[in-house]
């Protein structure tokens, strides 16, 4: 599986990663080599095998629907890269007309 730089750009876009030109070239070659190795799984006949998503057969538990006191607003905001009053400050999401 040969991964071209254009494909790396497409994957990086899906993954929300801004890469440098140098990184794109390195990842194109490394991803190709690793995916070639992963293709080894094609050798295994799994037509009659069910996929396993989890090691334990767990039931999905339901918790009681009770209210709890949450963490103080100030302690949550203490790690904020940027804030305005009690809000997280972020760039404009929807441009105004």
């Amino acid at each position, binding site marked *: 599986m040969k991964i071209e730089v254009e494909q790396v750009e497409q994957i990086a876009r899906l993954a929300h990663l801004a890469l440098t030109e140098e990184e794109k070239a390195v990842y194109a070659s490394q991803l190709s080599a690793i995916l070639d190795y*992963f293709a080894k799984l094609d050798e*295994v006949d799994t037509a009659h095998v069910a996929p396993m998503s989890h090691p334990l057969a767990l039931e999905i538990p339901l918790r009681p629907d009770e209210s709890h006191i949450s963490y103080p607003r100030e302690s949550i905001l203490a790690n904020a890269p940027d804030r305005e009053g009690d809000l997280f400050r972020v760039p404009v999401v929807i441009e105004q007309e």
Partner: protein
Amino acid sequence: MELYQYTAHELRDLLTSRQVSALDVVDSVLARIDEVEDQVHAYITVASHPARDRAQQIDAQRAAGAGLPPLAGIPVAVKDNLCTAGLPTTCASRMLAERHVPIYDATVVARLQTAGAIILGKTNMDEFAMGSSTENSAFFPTRNPWHLDRVPGGTSGGSAAALAAGETILALGSDTGGSIRQPGSFCGVVGLKPTYGRVSRYGLVAYASSLDQVGPLARDVTDAALLLAVLSGHDPRDSTSVDAPVPDYSRSLRADVQGLRLGRPREYFGQAPGAARGAGLDPEVRAPVERAIEQLAGWGAEVVDVSLPHTEYAVAAFYLIAMAEASSNLARYDGLRYGYRAGDDGVALHELIARTRGQGFGAEVKRRIMLGTYALSAGYYDAYYDQAQRVRTLIKHDYDCAFELCDLLVSPVSPFPAFALGEKVADPLQMYLADVYTVTANLAGIPALSVPCGFSDAGLPVGLQLQGPLFSEELLLRVAYTFEQNTDHHRRRPPLGRRT
């Protein structure tokens, strides 16, 4: 002998009989950190003042005659992907190096606090627990205390190195594909990955949620059992933690393997399974592991030849699943609410997020996020992710068949002893292939343990891996204990002193 050299169970006896105080113990370990940390680099954060304060609290409780919990006054190092309230939790990533001081404790950390343990600090690791050498830390690589030019293994390399160097008494690690066992093996300490669900993952920063498990690292099996008992148990905050009784693991420690059937997986002893480039089992690992198996046979165990036929597909299946889960779990890092944020020169939100992630994550993390994204993307899902999950079923089935023929499996942990810093960083695939003996336990969810079983010619530790059926921790501990009681590998310490 200095206090930092003792095991937790020895210190507990000294503390109970009032021969030493908790502050004596903490000060001894802090002095040792001061002595050797500039060579080992095991810690990202050392919490000296909180640790000393806590020791004084414990000593006050002792003086008041209060009944003491099981780890009262015992220093523990915590891997830096476990949330600690008020103490930075970085995952060894630029993404969380600043502005990530958690407001809550991981459940395992809260359990340590309740048990009277003293949190010494946060240990170095591969960024977001992705790697096999602790070289992927955004801060600095950790050195192997046995040979400072070698890696300590990874990803819990800081925890394993701190134990071997005498910079802590107990340590917590996390194991997604061998990250407790392999550094345990490389540094000559005991490391145990519990059954999936045995220990709560609440507050463990997620890498691959169906594979991650927190577990103990310790200088002997008795200490590992002591720590496992504190960590284990159901947690309503982790819906994948199992609501099953926690055995008294210390009671399983009896030196007796009479009649036990030890399975020797033949695929683990030949050409390294799945190796594309002819990397086999290093004779320097094979020799001590084979000798350990012979010794166990000599003490009454029966060695059975077993096969795990899908072993050669394990690395590919494991990495596809781990990367797919990682690409989803790490989507949360967007630089908006905590942690790193790229320079904001009026760019749009989506561009700020992409820049933040591009700059905040290291090379290996980005590699895995991209491969995971690719494996889950339209048109490739069936060929990669779905196929890997089907192979996972076959690997689980291999174990089920093997455990009909034997009680547990004995094998190497890693194909080779600790390698040189820089030796494998240029070739990520080579690094992945080294995990071939450890990743299958995570895929199947079963418990596995590494116990020191000898040394290479260059004096590097080698571990013996024991793997058992789901919830067979008592059996693994018992066999490891038997081995340890009859050998003295675990008593050797690296020759490490203050740099002159």
